[in-house]
């Protein structure tokens, strides 16, 4: 009996924490916010944000940190664009030296 109780407790502590999250950063943190210019992703559940997220993730301002703000549903891609749906990809184009220099901040 004692063993079972302990087993149950073990699993309980390993539940994924569900506390409300609000991950935000100061303005000077250098976080690339996909909802701000020049990316301007709109989190209304209808607008295609593929290009905005792709552009933000391929910025040469490495390390890229993307904050999807504000909390919202984002459609990916849009219903209305009619373009072939793409896969958001990690950047392929930035050269090694650029990426490294930018990492040096």
């Amino acid at each position: 009996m004692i063993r079972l109780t302990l087993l149950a407790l073990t699993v309980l502590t390993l539940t994924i924490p569900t506390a409300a999250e609000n991950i935000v950063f100061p303005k000077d943190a250098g976080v690339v916010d996909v909802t701000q210019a020049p990316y301007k992703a709109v989190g209304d559940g209808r607008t295609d944000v593929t290009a905005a997220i792709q552009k933000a993730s391929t910025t040469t301002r490495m390390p890229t940190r993307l904050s999807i703000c504000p909390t919202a549903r984002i459609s990916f891609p849009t219903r209305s664009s009619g373009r072939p749906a793409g896969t958001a990809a990690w950047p392929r184009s930035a050269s090694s030296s650029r990426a490294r220099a930018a990492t040096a901040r």
Partner: protein
Amino acid sequence: MAQKRVILQGQSRDGAVIRLKDKAPGFGDPRKPKAMVWTGRKPAQRFRNGIRNLTFDTGKGNAGAIGVQYIANNQGSVRMVKIVGEGPIGLDLGYTNEQGPCLIQDVTVEGFDVGVSMVHAVDSITMERVTVRGQKKAGISNKGQVVSIRGLRSVNTVAAVVNEGGSSVMTLLDSDLRVPPGGKSAAAAIENTGTLFARNVQTGNYAMAVRNGAGTKENAAGPNVAEFVSHKVLTMGGAKPTSLNLPIKETPVIPRDALADWVSPTEFGAVPDGKTDCTEAVQKAVDSGRKTLYFPYGNWRIDGTVEIRGDIQRVTALEGAISGSGTLKVVDGAAPAVTVERINLLYKQLSIEHASKRPVVVSGITFGKGELKYTGSGPLFIEDVCVHTIRMGERQAVYARQLNCEAKEKTKIINNGGTLWILGIKTEQIGTICETTDGGRTELCGFIYSNVNIPDGQPMFLVKDSDFSATIGESNFRGKPYPIVVEFVKAGKTSRLMREDANRRGGASILPLFVGRGK
């Protein structure tokens, strides 16, 4: 090269949802699957990629949509992420070779044929607190990797875990795998034809807990499994064939502070131009009375020692770099625990030192020429860290999740009398992986990539008058693997577990479970 150092960060897992359009063109054919998010391909240069606090939903009518194809190497994590859909794979960790090591933590996958998929033999995956639910073929499928999992929760009618083939090596701890109430499954909770070490696993409504087609060919009926090894346990020093089962401490959760409690060294005259030593201003920021020290976008240089003390409970560079030859030294202070996190020190010299009575968490950091030093008496928690060496001793304790050690030509980890627990180690280069001496206790699992010529007479593990247990998979494609897997010394008498005594993984070794008791 690119495809690295990109961190996709949401504001909250449940609030920031990236959703694929219903019936999206190109995502309809499961025979030609396509991922919503793709993060790069081999070789293993995809350092530090990360995804955090987001939900990915592949929508309706997209039977060919894979949720996320993720790769990171040496250091990188998917944390607090949910993936929902109906395509072939939710979290695809097997679409390209040379995957990992990386950390998958607090991740939920709902739907899909397979929740989490791994395929290739290198470079290992570590998971903690992963939930898989409602899959059509398997919760977790491993066809080759070395995988270390703790806290897997599966709600499925199909097998929760499929660990398949000779190169698959899985450690599964503290998990709960069950068919939903009222249901019943003809499958085993764990279908194994690879190497499996399972401990404290509860199952429910399956035909059996483990169906074992490898090694001993002995199944585990279950429903609960205290400890199970698919193959014969290797022992020394008269040890019983069971793991050390060291008490595992959870990584302390450091509360996130409101922005009003964040402090930047720029408020105290720091000039982040890469030339100016900012040590003094950083120390003033630490002593400001606020709780989170952050480094804004800039080129930071610290050449002296900054004492992390007082009220500071979080130090973060927000994934940025810090130059200079200095040290961030956590000493005693008012905050009950401190985390130093999200810093890229690749090619840098900065060191971080735990010199405190308090617990210290080091998380999401790639070290360069600097070191992670441990001189304090509080426990050291490591999550998703790439470092050269770990040195620890008496009255010290390290609890690590996803630790990459690549020191060249020297012993990577030395435990002189302390307590060391590692979920998912990965190493490279010549040198003994871990020495445990002077009554130390070491328990670890993970992957040894000895892809060079390991010198004759060099043991992978050295255990001297100490307790040690391990589950290990090794790979070596172009050199000589470790000739001695364990060198065990007890009261002056030396025993050796040679490569020939271990199980085979290609030309390299597998330890399903080794236990030596020499204290």
